């Protein structure tokens, strides 16, 4: 393992940490979703990520594309809500873009996650300010790229991405939802954090943890 790449083990650790975080925050995510949605985001994500870890915990993925294809398909079949196809697409695109590598350097990881975000946008038709996971993910990836461009290593870049995702998540609070179940509420959706943006912040917290030095 070098400082400049994310190994298959670290990428697996990313998923494992994400599972742990959504499990810990399950009631909180569901509480957010009960305010503006159908009160299942916490349980959906926990069920999905548990299914993912069960699938990949058995090992067998020899390369990044295999790993993330398995992750994406498991989410699609086990989540049930909109986050299934959305997170599923994110991970499937990461796998397709990364290819049969066994480790990703900063540029490759960035390109893969960028393709993941584009997949999410194509699937959900979300734009900035729609009060969705996009509002946490897009700034996170921008911060990740800016940090790498400034010469930072993966640990610093992923930490910057996490910070930006949290800021993006917090910025969803005053917004009126324009996508998903929350959009049925119109202006009443303002004043609540978006559950999808909140779980996306956890995704980048998990990445930062997995790629942290030491």
């Amino acid at each position, binding site marked *: 393992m070098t400082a400049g790449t994310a190994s298959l083990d670290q990428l697996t650790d990313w998923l494992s940490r994400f599972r742990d975080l959504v499990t810990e925050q399950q009631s909180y995510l569901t509480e957010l979703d009960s305010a503006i949605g159908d009160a*299942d985001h916490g349980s959906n994500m926990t069920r999905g990520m548990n299914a993912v870890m069960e699938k990949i915990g058995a090992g067998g993925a020899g390369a990044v594309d295999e790993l993330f294809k398995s992750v994406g398909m498991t989410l699609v079949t*086990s989540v*049930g809500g*909109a*986050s*299934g196809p959305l997170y599923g697409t994110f991970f499937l695109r990461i796998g397709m873009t990364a290819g049969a590598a066994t480790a990703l350097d900063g540029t490759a990881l960035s390109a893969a996650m960028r393709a993941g975000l584009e997949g999410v946008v194509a699937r959900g038709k979300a734009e900035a300010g729609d009060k969705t996971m996009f509002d946490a993910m897009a700034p996170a990836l921008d911060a990740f790229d800016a940090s790498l461009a400034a010469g930072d290593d993966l640990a610093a870049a992923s930490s910057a991405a996490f910070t930006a995702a949290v800021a993006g998540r917090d910025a969803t609070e005053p917004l009126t939802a324009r996508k998903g*179940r929350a959009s049925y509420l119109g202006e009443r959706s303002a004043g609540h954090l978006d559950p999808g943006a909140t779980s996306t912040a956890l995704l980048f917290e998990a990445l930062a943890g997995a790629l942290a030095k030491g």
Partner: protein
Amino acid sequence: MIGIVVVSHSPRLAQATVELALEMVGDNPPPIAIAAGAGDGIIGTDATKVAAAIDEISSPDGVLVFMDLGSAVLSATMALEFTSTHGEVRLSDAPFVEGIIAAVVLAAVGASLDEVEREAHGAMDAKRGQLDHSVPGGPVVVSGAGEATADERLVNPDGLHSRPAAAIVKALVGFDAKLTISDLTNGKGPVNAASLIGIMSLGAKEGDVIRISGSGAEAHAAVEALRTLAADGFGELPGS
């Protein structure tokens, strides 16, 4: 015959809707596959289930997919990436219940994917008409060589509700003619007689006089066929 895929968060909602639609088609329903729920009793949708449902009933005639809301739409769009069918697959923007009923009835009489999709898309019109809200689209203009017109008083107790409307649509298949129906009593129409939703939007009741107008090579025979149906009360007269 085109196939119909029903995507819902809830297996019970999907089954009940299909049941409602099948009441209208008798012995020859179109292929229908349900993809509802995610995993064990979970309310939700699963793109791989949707893809499997599409593949199960796909044919060269095509498949039209109906979704309830939210993730059902996302799962259906994602399923298009997973299917192995070479037939055409389209996602309908129709309201769930009205769209599925219109589609099942029309598909059962052999309508094309285009026709069924268009009918399903306009499936809200019947309810709009019932509520006296404006229905988009002007009257159907009929002109041509062979022309025929007949007025008939509706004798069946429930007027032109869904089953008689389906009977009319079915009866017209195969005739080389374009027919319209208007309700002279309530002043609604004319509407396309090949459109289930169009006919239902007339809100024609027992005792109303409807005008059946046709043009085309077989207009006379087609108008006569509808007259007979109406005179027989669409098989709904007590004791029939």
